[in-house]
């Protein structure tokens, strides 16, 4: 779990079964294992009212483990973008009592949270658990472009090409960390680039 450095930096918990009849899970890659672990403490029949939406990692693992939980609905998607319409539809039709569980990478948790916030779920009432890669979704504060899966420090903006220091400063509205030009004074100065978010 990520350490808390500055106040906007999200911190994540451990999924735990909440009271209620409707449970919506969103996970990517190793996030599936957070659901499987939580299932051990879930009361009988918990997954009868659950929907799991899963984006497998490149290795395609964990689909079977989630299906074995026998949720009322199981849906697989190739990317977050591809499941967005479905997620929005589900939340639009949902009633109070729906509980949301987000597990996996920060990019997945943050983007799903962004949609859920718009639907009226308070961020403190969502269950989250970080699993898998530490890769960050980053917004360049200069050109405003968003670069996905940033793993290095500093990182190059995929839009404007500036070399950015990836800050812990996080925007819930954008679901992204802020990237700030690291060599604004002298662009020829290139600090060593290290893998910081494996």
């Amino acid at each position: 779990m990520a350490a808390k450095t500055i106040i906007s930096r999200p911190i994540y918990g451990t999924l735990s079964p909440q009271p209620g009849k409707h449970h919506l899970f969103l996970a990517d890659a190793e996030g599936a294992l957070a659901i499987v672990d939580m299932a051990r403490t879930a009361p009988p029949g918990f997954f009868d009212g659950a929907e799991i939406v899963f984006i497998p990692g490149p290795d395609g693992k964990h689909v079977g483990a989630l299906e074995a939980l026998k949720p009322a609905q199981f849906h697989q998607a190739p990317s977050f973008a591809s499941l967005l319409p479905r997620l929005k539809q589900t939340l639009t039709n949902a009633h109070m009592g729906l509980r949301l569980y987000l597990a996996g990478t920060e990019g997945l948790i943050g983007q799903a949270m962004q949609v859920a916030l718009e639907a009226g779920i308070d961020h403190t009432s969502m269950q989250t658990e970080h699993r898998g890669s530490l890769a960050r979704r980053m917004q360049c504060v200069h050109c405003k472009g968003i670069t996905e899966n940033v793993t290095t420090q500093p990182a190059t903006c995929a839009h404007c090409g500036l070399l950015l220091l990836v800050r812990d400063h996080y925007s819930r509205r954008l679901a992204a960390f802020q990237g700030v030009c690291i060599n604004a004074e002298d662009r020829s100065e290139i600090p060593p680039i290290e893998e910081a978010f494996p």
Partner: protein
Amino acid sequence: MSTGTTKLDVVVSDVVPVNDLVTRFHFRRRDGELLPTFSGGAHVVVEMRDGERTRLNPYSLMGSPLDTREYTISVRRDDVGRGGSLFMHRSVKPGLEMVISYPVNLFSLDLRAKKHLMLAGGIGITPFMAQTAQLAGEGGNFELHYTCRTASLGTYADVLRERYDRRIRLYHDDREERIELDRLLSTQPLGTHLYVCGPAGMINWVRDRAASLGWPSEAVHFEHFAAPQPGLPFDVTLAVSGKTIRVGEQQSLLEAIEAAGVDPPYLCRGGVCGQCETNVISHDGKFIHNDHWLSEEEHRSGCKIMPCVSRFEGRSLVLER
């Protein structure tokens, strides 16, 4: 001293009987200026000078937050209570100069909500008078369910129906009308916030059902004005000021501390806000915690007490302040 608040010098501009139990009081500033802005759900603490005794009771502001020329509160008469409401009913007349606190809101609307679902019981309607006025002014999406004993005791039910029509749903105990709570809670759109104000039993019922139906606690707001419970008199020593005082049968610990000339912080005087939390230095006896602020663990530890509603039975009690 009420933390974060200063006092307002007001004059009673009108006293209006509403029904057999409830009277409405209007206050204006003595200097003729506008009163401070407040938001729906706010309360003021009214100081009542009753001979030797000063009583301080919190009452919700029920006027529209859009009109600060006057504040209005409604007081339900409690014939077996500690006397504050009786004093208001019997002794407070138009023209009387009084002191009230600045408004404090411990029951505010969460304006991020997509919809506001309000449940009121009895005199618990008063904060909703201001909240509905605030939301109506902003085109807010709300629905109010109001339970009262009989139609004639449905305080302001007619006003609310007139103003908001079908957004108000009434339930009368004498006609055995009950809120279908589970159905109501299960059919609210995502993003709804729930507000409940009324008797403790109603609040507990609603909070319990909401929690078990999957409502996150962040979306459930409640307010209960608990009057301090009477009990056996007891003595208490205040370590900092070195005073030893007696808390009378009908007096709260907070009131006794104030009567002794100590000025402790407070906001709600009902055991919910946490302002008056006090450290216990030593004790020999049993606490009667009536607050909703401290955790069960803190209650058991005997290290803290909320002087606004909690009491003590035993040989000795030393508090920090």
